[in-house]
């Protein structure tokens, strides 16, 4: 029978409010992950997430057009069309899954999509490192 991985701890990467209420997460490397993952790798992941959230919230021509169209149709247009924000959120979900598959799961870590936590934290679950007990 396969043994299941057990959760050892959870680390929460908080929101970074220094530049306003935009969705940004702190890139400070938590000490609990020191022996699990490379600091550079971690920071790169968080920075990529921050960039994607910034892109989602960006006020470009597309968001203006969407906004005007929405206003004119009393928001019924969103029954047929996805907003730019939603598209980027999907992209973020895909990115997190890919990061988990390639980088985090092999190290016994699991990133949780911040949207599942209300965009308040990035939750990193640390699993028991069986190789240590061997």
């Amino acid at each position, binding site marked *: *029978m*396969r043994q*299941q*991985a*057990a*959760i*050892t*701890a*959870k*680390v*929460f*990467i*908080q929101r970074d*409010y*220094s*530049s*306003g*209420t935009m969705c940004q997460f*702190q890139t*400070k490397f*938590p*000490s*609990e992950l020191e*022996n699990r993952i490379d600091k550079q790798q971690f920071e790169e992941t968080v920075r990529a997430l921050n960039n994607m959230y910034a892109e*989602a*919230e960006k*006020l470009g021509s597309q*968001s*203006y057009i969407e*906004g005007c169209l929405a*206003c004119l149709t*009393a*928001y*019924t247009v*969103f029954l047929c069309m996805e*907003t*730019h*924000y*939603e598209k980027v959120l999907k992209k973020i979900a895909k990115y997190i*899954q890919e990061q*988990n*598959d390639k980088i985090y*799961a*092999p*190290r*016994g870590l*699991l990133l*949780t999509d911040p*949207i599942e*936590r*209300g*965009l*308040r*934290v990035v939750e990193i*679950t*640390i*699993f*028991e*490192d069986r*190789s240590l007990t061997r």
Partner: protein
Amino acid sequence: MHLGVSESMRECEYSQISTRSSTPMETPYKKRTPKKRKWEIFPGRNKFYCDGRVMMAKQTGVFYLTLILILVTCGLFFTFDCPFLAQQLTPVIPVSFLFDLYVSLLYFLQDVANGGTGYRPPPRTKEVVINGQTVKLKYCFTCKIFRPPRASHCSLCDNCVERFDHHCPWVGNCVGRRNYRFFYMFILSLSFLTIFIFAFVITHIILRSHQNGFLSALKDSPLVVCFFSVWSIVGLSGFHTYLISSNQTTNEDIKGSWSSKRGKDNYNPYSYGNIFTNCCACDQDQCIQSTKFVLQAAATPLLQHQSSEPVILTTSPENGGTLPGRASLALTGPCTSLPLGQPTPPTSTSSLSCHEAADKLPESVFQHHFLTPEEVPSPPGMLHCGSPMGHSHTTQAGFYDPASQDSLHEDSVRGLVKLSSV
């Protein structure tokens, strides 16, 4: 050091971790209990309709009253004034009136449907610097989270609301981040509607008085209602337009949070300084898409995390205090990352977590996706408890979802309000 271990060996160790957190759990046991939505678990004082798509406050009667008031007024106008005006002036009048009414109702319903609420975000205060201004984040004891900036707790809805504007008694719901744009469009279209009705009722009266000089009492009704509502609604629209241009919420304006009277250096950190940018930046699209997601998510007892937080904790009883029970667990590193951020005293929590893990796990297995990690203490609690954990593992052979391991803290259950998750 395990860093020296080869990748293949490491992968073997962790192959059980499922990285697909959003898909339903695949268990060899095909038994599926119907998924419980998060809002079913944490309703707060809200009422949910349409499978979680519509969220309203407790007093739904007020919503129906407002709806009836709008419809009756418009109905009276349509019945008595429109035929006359269509003949005398132009048929465009009733057409544009109907269109305006339709649009207003749409916004009204969307305003209600979206609900204002966010989530229930733990105690005391935390200071954060936003754009150079220090903002105090309070801990909400009811919702058991630290409120993010601009969030506030609504006692009527009994939960914290993100970017809390106000609790609208007419709509019977809170106005917050998700439905502010609908609310604003609603009052704007309603003010056009009332001005329209008011103007044409007066025109009707004037034209009639040229003809007969006599006006039935019934025709006065729309006039009377319109007269009062025009001033209040137009006034409210104007006020909200001002709030949007300065990027403030009603709550902030009333409290004078960013008023220069409070202090010389007091300014609104959220404002972009430019009226146009403020207007455009308001609310973003999170409002729209949020009905698909659960915005709350609680939990995360963020307190513990002293090492990862650059913020200054003003008073934090949890500071440096891991639960005495936990200290005995053999955890890797200085595991202070375990969220212990509940307001309940440590001793009770540690006993609770273990106890709850035993109770909740069997049920929580199939609810994994919808349980929030309010109780992050659960993992170590579960490790400590041994057998419940073993039991849960056997039922999930082949698949492991960390979210299922989170147990619910009794106190925080009432905290969270959510819409249905995907």
